[in-house]
């Protein structure tokens, strides 16, 4: 999860900085979009999508491998954790550029994220989209993580050592 967010950070720093929106805000919505289910995103976003002829594709969806780095204990030396398949796409809507990067090999998912990213940068579309798309996806994501951590916590085993002797 953390790694995909860092990917966006890398990407945004390398290519272009968003003009109006600050980076952490954009990182948050890109992180939510990338970690959500493609089907859920499709359902929530489709009423808001611009007509296809208004979207110009700078980069059609393409899949490649990205090396994910880790740090021992979160702070130690860097090491290569492994390669992960990543699909990316970029589009322009009006004069806004949207980038979509997502783990996996689903081109439609990357295309949806790119369009959502472009729309979210438009000040007049931003509040409605945050309320209708990003917040529900973020809630679902949080619920999914809580469920997972509850299930993990329920399987926790406590070990006791009986005091012997006396």
């Amino acid at each position, binding site marked *: 999860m953390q790694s995909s967010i860092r990917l966006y950070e890398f990407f945004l720093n390398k*290519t*272009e900085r968003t*003009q109006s929106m600050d980076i952490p805000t954009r990182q948050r919505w890109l992180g939510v979009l990338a970690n959500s289910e493609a089907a859920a995103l499709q359902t929530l976003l489709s009423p808001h999508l611009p007509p296809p002829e208004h979207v*110009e*594709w*700078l*980069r*059609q969806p*393409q899949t490649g491998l990205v090396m994910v780095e880790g740090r021992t204990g979160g702070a130690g030396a860097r090491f290569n954790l492994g390669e992960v398949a990543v699909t990316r796409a*970029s589009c*322009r809507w009006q*004069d806004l*550029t949207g980038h979509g990067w997502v783990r996996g090999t689903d081109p439609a998912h990357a295309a949806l994220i790119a369009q959502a990213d472009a729309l979210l940068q438009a000040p007049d579309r931003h509040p409605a989209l945050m309320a209708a798309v990003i917040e529900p996806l973020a809630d679902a994501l949080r619920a999914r993580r809580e469920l997972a951590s509850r299930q993990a916590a329920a399987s926790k085993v406590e070990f006791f050592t009986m005091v012997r002797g006396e």
Partner: protein
Amino acid sequence: MMLHTGFKHPVDDAQRNFRALLEALSRPLQPRALPTLPPALPGLAAGTVALLYTLADQDVAVWLPDLPADTLATLRFHTGMTLAASPLAADFIVIPTGRALPALDALPAGEAEYPDRAATLIIETGAFHQCDVEASGPGIAAPLRFGAQGLPKDFWRQWQVNHARYPLGVDALLVADGVIAGLPRSVSVKEG
């Protein structure tokens, strides 16, 4: 700042252009059209942009003169190229129409052990014709007449000096809009 679209089919289009480029360099100074052209960028002709999309990647340093930010951002977006600070540190040196050409003998010409570490010039010119020089060398069966509008007056004299350094020296690609002519360092020219 606005990014522009590149090749419609990045892999296929780049491969087709690369094939044409190989032929252009193996049959020097015989103009041939690039098979697919991307949209031109502000300050660069479509043919030049096509060559950069075809040749440049993240391992390549390209020197470009002052160009609009859109153009630089788009080239970086589609290729991942690094921008060289000076022509001396570049693998590719792009000279758009109307920009000054640096002296050829000052550019990276490779080393005796690694002649391939020389710079390649991409020079935008006007239309090709047959009036400036008579060229000969590998890939040219019979002496060939060639010329290009818009080249500096002493270009061919400089080129002959460049050729004399063979196997070192720079290579050049001349671009007249969508038509290219290869000019590898092996080509010898005689003016008049």
